[in-house]
């Protein structure tokens, strides 16, 4: 695909969205049998699964912490999730994303309730189109709730960025590649506290503030969809 001349024409993006518009979003909770909690997120062409195991006994034992559970996160991409087949196994990018994902989720967990335990969060990207780390955090939060892990608040996550000098919500891969700036963000939607923030590209002070505005708005929508997914799961269960 060649770089298009413009990424925004007549106020519309390549896929027809307005700058402040999210891609179609579908969240489902409790989709896996074996996991203690699970969720899937489809955001545009992204397909992401998350599963939670735990709190469970920590292995290997020497990693046990006497006064707290340990949260472990693994973000991983399927070999077929991207255009050129990705070799299986962690690369530097996925190691970093796993780390910031853990740091994005940990602030809402009560790990001190489960000494010597592990809580494992596994995120699998099945199909990728930019925004997989934020979709993964969004899915992981629903999976944690589905697993019954107590939380202070949810974590909702989305990316904002700059393309053609416009601040936009929820970049596609084309927008990420040819745009100027990408800023993934995660926050507690009720307390408005930011638990993940990364950014690369270029922002003036004003643009940064505009981007934060849009991120807050986007996370609000994500939060709504997360709650809806959990309500549906719960309703079905009650109706069973």
């Amino acid at each position: 695909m060649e770089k298009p001349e413009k990424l925004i024409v007549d106020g519309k993006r390549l896929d027809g969205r307005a700058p402040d518009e999210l891609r179609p979003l579908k969240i489902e909770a409790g989709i896996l049998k074996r996991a203690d909690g699970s969720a899937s997120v489809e955001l545009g062409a992204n397909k992401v699964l998350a599963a939670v195991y735990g709190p469970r006994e920590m292995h290997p034992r020497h990693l046990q912490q006497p006064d707290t559970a340990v949260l472990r996160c693994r973000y991983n991409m399927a070999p077929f999730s991207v255009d050129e087949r990705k070799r299986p196994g962690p690369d530097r990018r996925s190691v970093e994303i796993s780390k910031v994902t853990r740091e994005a989720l940990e602030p809402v967990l009560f790990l001190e309730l489960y000494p010597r335990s592990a809580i494992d969060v596994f995120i699998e990207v099945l199909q990728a189109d930019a925004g997989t780390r934020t979709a993964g955090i969004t899915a992981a939060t629903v999976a944690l709730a589905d697993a019954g892990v107590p939380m202070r608040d949810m974590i909702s996550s989305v990316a904002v960025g700059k393309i053609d000098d416009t601040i936009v919500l929820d970049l596609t891969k084309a927008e990420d590649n040819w745009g100027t700036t990408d800023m993934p963000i995660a926050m507690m939607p009720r307390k408005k506290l930011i638990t993940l923030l990364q950014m690369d590209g270029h922002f003036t002070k004003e643009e940064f503030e505009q981007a934060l505005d849009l991120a807050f708005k986007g996370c609000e929508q994500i939060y709504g969809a997360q709650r809806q997914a959990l309500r549906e799961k719960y309703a079905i269960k009650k109706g069973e």
Partner: protein
Amino acid sequence: MHEIVSSVKRDYIADLARQGKRIDTRTLDQFREISIEVGPVKSAQGSALVKIGKTQVMAGVKVERAEPFADKPDSGMLIVNAELLPLASPTFEPGRPGENAIELARVVDRGIRESDAIDLEKLVIKSGEDVWAVFIDIYVLDHDGNLIDASALAAMAALLNAKPLEDEAWTLPEFPIQKKPVAVTVVKINDRLVVDPCVDEEGVMDARITIATIEDGSICAMQKGGIGCFSREELEQAHELARVKGAELRAKLG
């Protein structure tokens, strides 16, 4: 791959088997419900999501140009990889594929390779220099038993779903699929032969035998697993089960 089952449940499953019964009310030669979703992943040339009961396996096909093996200059390449994802079972751990994942990939590989399911000779761009390599990545999402059959089915469904590449070197009108091998795994529980074991049944079984067959019922690959053994008669019964059940599975491939 076989998980620990409590001794009470173990005895219960074994007793049921002796009576020709199973914990989920199936007959010994009955599969769970099977569904095949083709093309769920657009970033792959072909893909499929197979569910057998609660077991979920996804397979994706990617094609890349590669240099052929020195001893096979006129053949495309087939590479099968399997990941037992840690989200699929509390017993799967992150890291490089262990012996169970490697065996799974190699058994699926042999079924496809030995039946000539793909006409690899058609995947040559330039003899000895440039061929197509077909990667089949098997992604186990939820492990409720019988991963081999589910994986083989997903792999074959993904191949059948695979679309020609948009690449000027790709001159075939379609993916050169010429056979539909299907694997059926038979396990032995308390001296009874059982198909499509769920994860608890696998925890109780003595041994398993996987038999991959093609359209005419002949065998293209076999693999015994587990620490028990089979008599000759049991093997012959297992083959008969594999032939009959294999035809049922193949019908689902369309």
